[in-house]
C-alpha cells in the first residue's frame, strides 16, 4: 500500500512518463539512455513515405539504418505541408502522385518491421490523424510498430484538447519547441513531450541551410536547464560544420531536406542512394565521436 503510494508520487513527479509506462521505458527512451552512456549523439534521418516510390523508400530506410541511424523519422505525405520548404513539398507531392495514403504508410512500416527493430517515429499533419479517426490512427500505428508521433501543426493548446487520446496510446508523443516559444511554454512543452523534444533550429520552414541561427545555442542551453528530456535539433541541419557547432548542446540531430535533396538532384536512385550513404556515414561519424 505505502509502496503503491510511493510509486504514484514518483510517477507524478516524473511528468515525462505517463501512467501507462510505469516501470517500462519506451524504445526511444532506451536508445537515448544507451547513447548517453556511451557519450554519443543520436542521428535521426527523415524520409517521406513513398518517395521516390514505395520500394525504393523501403530500401532507403534500410540504407539509413545500416549507416548508423538511431531512429528513423517517416513523413506521411500531405497535400498542404505548411511547415515544409520546397524539398519536402516536392517529395510529398511525388509520394502522393504515387498513390500513397495512410493505410499504405502503415503497411510499409509493417514491411520494414519484418527486418528491423529500429525505433520509428511518424511525422504527420494533424488532419491525416483526425480524418483517420484519432483512436484508429494511434491503434494502427502502434500495432504496425510505430514508436512515436510528431504532429507539427498541433501546438500545446490544441494538443491539450486531445491529450486523452495520446495518454491512452503506447506511442511517444513528441512535441516541438521553437526559438519563439516563451520560457513558460517551453516548460509546459517539455513536461508533456515524450521520448524526446523536437527543437526547431530556425525561424522558418524545413529546408537546406548552411548556417546555424545565432540564437540556437542559447536556446538549447536554456532548454537543458528546464528539462532532462533528450533534445533533438532539426530543420535546416545540412552540413558537418553545423553539426560540429551544435552537437555538444543537444542529444540528437534530425536531418531531412538535405538527404532528400541529394536524392532529388541525383541522376538516378542508385546514384542518389550511394551519395546518401556516404553523407549519412560521415554525419554519423561526427555524432558518434
Amino acid at each position, binding site marked *: 500500500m505505502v509502496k503503491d503510494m510511493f510509486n504514484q508520487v514518483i510517477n507524478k513527479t516524473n511528468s515525462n512518463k505517463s501512467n501507462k509506462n510505469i516501470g517500462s521505458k519506451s524504445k526511444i527512451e532506451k536508445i537515448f539512455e544507451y547513447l548517453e552512456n556511451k557519450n554519443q549523439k543520436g542521428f535521426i534521418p527523415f524520409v517521406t513515405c513513398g518517395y521516390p516510390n514505395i520500394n525504393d523508400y523501403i530500401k532507403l530506410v534500410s540504407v539509413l539504418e545500416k549507416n548508423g541511424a538511431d531512429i528513423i523519422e517517416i513523413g506521411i505525405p500531405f*497535400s498542404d505541408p505548411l511547415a515544409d520548404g520546397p524539398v519536402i513539398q516536392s517529395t510529398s507531392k511525388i509520394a502522393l502522385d504515387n498513390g500513397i495514403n495512410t493505410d499504405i504508410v502503415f503497411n510499409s512500416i509493417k514491411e520494414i518491421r519484418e527486418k528491423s527493430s529500429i525505433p520509428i517515429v511518424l511525422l504527420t499533419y494533424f488532419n491525416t490523424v483526425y480524418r483517420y479517426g484519432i483512436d484508429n490512427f494511434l491503434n494502427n500505428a502502434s500495432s504496425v510498430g510505430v514508436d512515436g508521433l510528431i504532429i507539427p501543426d498541433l501546438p500545446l493548446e490544441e494538443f491539450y484538447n486531445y491529450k486523452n487520446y495520446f495518454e491512452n496510446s503506447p506511442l511517444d508523443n513528441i512535441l*516541438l519547441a521553437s526559438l519563439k516559444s516563451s520560457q513558460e511554454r517551453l516548460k509546459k512543452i517539455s513536461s508533456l513531450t515524450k521520448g524526446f523534444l523536437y527543437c526547431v533550429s530556425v*525561424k522558418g520552414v524545413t529546408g537546406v541551410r548552411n548556417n546555424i541561427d545565432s540564437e540556437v545555442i542559447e536556446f538549447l542551453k536554456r532548454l537543458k536547464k528546464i528539462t532532462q528530456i533528450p533534445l533533438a535539433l532539426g530543420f535546416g541541419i545540412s552540413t558537418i560544420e553545423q553539426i560540429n557547432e551544435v552537437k555538444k548542446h543537444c542529444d540528437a540531430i534530425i536531418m531531412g531536406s538535405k538527404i532528400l535533396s541529394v536524392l532529388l538532384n541525383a541522376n538516378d536512385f542508385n546514384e542518389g542512394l550511394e551519395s546518401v550513404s556516404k553523407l549519412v556515414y560521415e554525419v554519423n561519424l561526427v555524432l558518434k565521436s
Partner: protein
Amino acid sequence: MDDKKGRAIINKTIKAKKENKKIKFLKGYFGDYGGRFVPEILIDALEELEKKYKLAKRDKQFHEELNYYLKNYAGRPTPLYFAKRLTDYIGGAKIYLKREDLCHLGAHKINNTLGQVLLAKKMNKQNIIAETGAGQHGVSTAAVAALFNMKCKIFMGSVDIERQHPNVERMKLLGAEVVEVKSGSRTLKDAVNEAIRYWVSNIDDTYYVLGSVVGPHPYPTIVRDFQSVIGIETKRQIKRFEGRLPDYIIACVGGGSNSMGIFYPFLRETDKVKLIGIEAGGKGIESGLHGASLTSGEKGIFQGTLSNVLQDSFGQIKEAYSISAGLDYPGVGPEHAYLKEKGKVKYDYILDHEAVNAFKTLSELEGIIPALESSHAVAYAMKIASNLEKDKIIIVNLSGRGDKDMESVSKFFTNQLI
C-alpha cells in the same frame, strides 16, 4: 426504477451542459470549430496579435482613425439600393442590394485591410504580406500599404495570375511585389500556404493581412469584426427605407468574409431575418468541380483551423473549383461551420451558369456589373424572390464589382457556343 432512469437522464443532461460550457470557453473556438493548428513558431505572433487587437478594440483613437479612413478613403457608408427593375422583372419579393461594389477598389475587402494595416502600424511592423485569389484582397492590401508607406508582398498562385491579370498590374502599380506561387494547385489555397511559410520565416518584422474569416485564431474573429460594418450599416439603412428588418439576407461564401460581415449584426434576429450563405456549386456537386465546403465538405483541419473542408477519405485536401476565383477555396471560415451546425444560417449553392446568368441580368436591368462571386448571391435571390409575396424584403450583399470578370464571362459564353 423510473426514478432511477429519470435521475440518469438528468445527470446526463447536466454532464452534457457542462461539456457544452467547456467547449464554449475554449479559446478561439466557435463550438467545435476554429482553434489554432499551426507550427509552434507562430503561436507567439498570434498571441501578440490577439493581445494588440483586444487593446485596439477598446481604443477610441483606433476607431476614430479607422472610421476616418473608412469614410474618406474607402467611401463608406455604401448605399443600400432598391433594385426596382430587377424586382419587377422577377415579380416577387423586393430586392435590395448592399453596394459593397462601390467601395474604393471595387470590393468589401478594403474594410478588413484598412483595419488590419492600422493594427500592423500599432504593432510597429513595417512589412505587410497577404495572399490573394481573385486579386481583390491583394489590390486592397497593396493600396493600403501604399497609403501608409509600408512594404508589401502579395502571394498569388500562377493559375490566378493568369486569369486575373489586370489585378496583378494594379498591385504592381500600387508598389507591391507580386510573388508567384507555383506549388500545389497554384491557386488561392497555395497562396495562403506560401504566405504562411513566408510569415514563419520572417516572423519578427512581418504582419500577415489574412483576407478572409479563415486561418488560425484570432484571424476569423478579427476579419469578421472589421467586416461587420457592412451589416451594421445595412440594418440602419433598411430600417430607414422600410421601417423594419428584412426577411432574407443573401451573401456568397468562399472563405466567408463578406457574408460573415453582413450576417454578424443580425445573428440575434434570426427568428425574423433568414440568413442564407451561397457557395460555389461550380459544375455541380456530383461533378466534384465546385467550392461548396459547407454543402459537401467534412470536418477537418486546414490552414490552421478546424472547419468544413473538401478532402478525400485520408484527409488530403481536394482542389476546389469555381468560375469565380474568389470562391475557389476548399475550406471555409470556422464560424460559418458553427452557424450551419446550429441552424442559425442556411447554406446552399449556385452553379456556374446560374451565376453567369445573374451577372448578365443585373448588368442589363440595373446597369450594375456584379463580381462573379456576388453574382452567386444575386442568382439565389432571383431564384427565391419569384415564390415570395411582394411585401417580402430580400437584401443581397453585392460584395464586389465585376469588371475583373469580363474575360472569364466571355470565355464562358464562347465555350458554351462550342
